[in-house]
């Protein structure tokens, strides 16, 4: 269920070694080039070659490669979308019972004339921030804060946008004492009662119950190289293969990519990432998210609360099920 390992920060993605070499070379060349036409030709050629290499590499990513992209330290996190894609944001802190979990950020957001409540995992950017946010692993008070703000949104008539990016809910003594399981369960149950539109984005890591705790939505979307899994590949490998090093096999077996999950009907749509992943061009990614949020909110315009709740329940009641496989209750 939960994730035992902290996100390891790769110095660079292993499968990107050639690409990074070319990128370095390109930067050097561009510096030298100036007005030198001969070198400019060389720059153009290298740019084209790099593009081809990126297209080829990213078309053939394994499930495990995608997990490493989803965990890339330069990949945009919730805070980047708040700063870059929103026109306004007022952070609302705290669960008003126990504390203010920094691993989940909540607040009032606006894009253009669309106002909504944002609920998202926060991983942090600097090492200090990441430690403070427990690498995006929330405690029960984080899930309770999320629920409190979602219920506030319902009263205010605001739709809800969630951004999922967590290796998993935090496994620790305090988390268990304060009811990690109950907090997540309560969120899942109560999200089925929210009479306002809910849109969920898996923007990076969709780690198990910790992800689902803010993941019950009318529209569930995934970024192209995000992953969403019942257990971390490392956790799965440790339990089933008794060997954490076999994570790549586990990632493959778990079927955790956006493509597979869309085929299974678990994910409603995929937000495309710039060539070479969101970490390669964050401003393009942020712009795509801005457009996607507006588009998805608009798609739920005009549905009343009862319809939204009924549809949401029906969607998850039959998610992934093969027609006719299960009986109807006697």
């Amino acid at each position, binding site marked *: 269920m939960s994730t035992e390992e902290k996100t390891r920060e790769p110095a660079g993605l292993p499968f990107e070694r050639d690409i990074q070499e070319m990128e370095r070379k390109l930067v050097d060349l561009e510096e030298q080039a100036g007005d030198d036409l001969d070198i400019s030709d060389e720059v153009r050629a290298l740019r084209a070659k790099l593009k081809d290499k990126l297209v080829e590499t990213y078309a053939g990513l394994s499930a495990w490669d995608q997990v490493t992209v989803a965990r890339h330290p330069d990949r945009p996190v919730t805070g980047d979308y708040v700063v870059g894609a929103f026109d306004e944001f007022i952070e609302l802190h705290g669960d008003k019972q126990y504390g203010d979990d920094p691993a989940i950020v909540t607040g009032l957001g606006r894009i253009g004339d669309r106002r909504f409540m944002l609920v998202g995992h926060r991983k942090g950017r600097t090492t200090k921030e990441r430690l403070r946010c427990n690498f995006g692993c929330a405690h029960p008070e984080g899930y309770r804060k999320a629920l409190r703000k979602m219920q506030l949104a319902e009263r205010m008539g605001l739709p809800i946008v969630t951004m999922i990016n967590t290796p998993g809910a935090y496994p620790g003594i305090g988390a268990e004492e304060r009811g990690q399981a109950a907090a997540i369960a309560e969120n899942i149950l109560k999200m089925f009662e929210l009479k306002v539109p809910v849109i969920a984005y898996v923007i990076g890591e969709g780690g198990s119950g910790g992800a689902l705790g803010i*993941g019950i939505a009318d529209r569930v979307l995934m970024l192209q190289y995000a992953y969403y899994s019942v257990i971390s590949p490392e956790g799965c490998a440790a*339990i089933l293969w008794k060997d954490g090093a076999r994570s790549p096999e586990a990632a493959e077996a778990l079927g955790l990519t956006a493509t597979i999950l869309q085929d299974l009907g678990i994910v409603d749509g995929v937000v495309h990432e710039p060539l070479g992943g969101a970490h390669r061009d964050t401003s393009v990614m942020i712009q795509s998210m801005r457009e996607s949020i507006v588009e998805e909110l608009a798609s739920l315009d005009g549905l009343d609360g009862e319809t939204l709740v009924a549809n949401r329940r029906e969607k998850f009641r039959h998610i992934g099920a093969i027609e006719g*496989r299960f009986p109807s209750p*006697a």
Partner: protein
Amino acid sequence: MTETSMSKDASNSGDGEAGGDGRINRLRFRKKDMPGGLWLKCESCSGTIYRKEVVEKAYTCPACGFHFTMPGADRVRHTLDEGTWEELFSEIEAMDRLGFVDSGPYGDKIERTVKRTGQNEALIAGRGEVLGRPVVLGVLDFKFLGGSMGEVVGEKIALCCDVARKEGKPLLLFTASGGARMHEGMLSLMQMAKTCSALSKLNEDGGFSICVLTHPTTGGVTASFAMVCDITLAEPGALIGFAGPRVIASTIKQELPEGFQRAEFLLEKGQVDVIVSRDEMRNMLARLIDFGACRPGAGATAGRRPASSSERASSSGAEQEAPSTSVPGDEAKGSSGDVASSDGS
């Protein structure tokens, strides 16, 4: 397996793999071990105990009273009135939709488990009566792939919610589970959502639900339907948590405190309503169901349950258990003393 095979380290046979690590601190009861004459070691008091006596005492330790994991079929028998059990949805079988292979194909693993257990899945569902009170019952059986929740378990729990809703009966669930069944990937995680979706509908229509958390219950089962029923009961000593103890210990790199994640710990932390011992379970369930029958959804006026239900209760007088009188309090055994006092009789 050796004669003391029911100790802590005997559980790595590979069939109990689930989403968490609920395999530790539990006993395995396997059919081939069942013939009498075997001596076992209690995981709680370390005493050497006679297996037959354990089974006779409803899978509790004769020495210390520890409540071992109870096989699903025994749980059904132990909970319901004789002759009232009507199993539902037993025909639904698991499917290997991802083609999951670890040490072998998941499909083969299911096939072996079905053969070994004689049942199609980890959840046993049906209708029955508890001291004359009709219920819809769902029991998670740990011996079927660690009671793990995949598509079929999730679907059957949702179907139980649906039947309870349509028939206006209380929903009664027993859990023993390592969590989500990772061999079904995200389809298994989605069962947390599916079960809560059905439960949410049941709640809206005035349903009443009781979940009994038994040893061990962890992971995606705890973090979904099990913790959000109207009443949350636990058996004494049961290991209950979100993350398994091994995961926590390896994350925080320190020893876990004594009694951590046990039912008594959860009670102290406000996570469960009552701890109920196995010999008092039927009695407690019946009493709770009578209180549940006062709900508007059951067609009652405030605080008074419909007459038909109370008639049923008295007609079951042949049983020695008397549902509407106090159960004597016995804190030492982790029983229901404090609730009994609120019975008012």
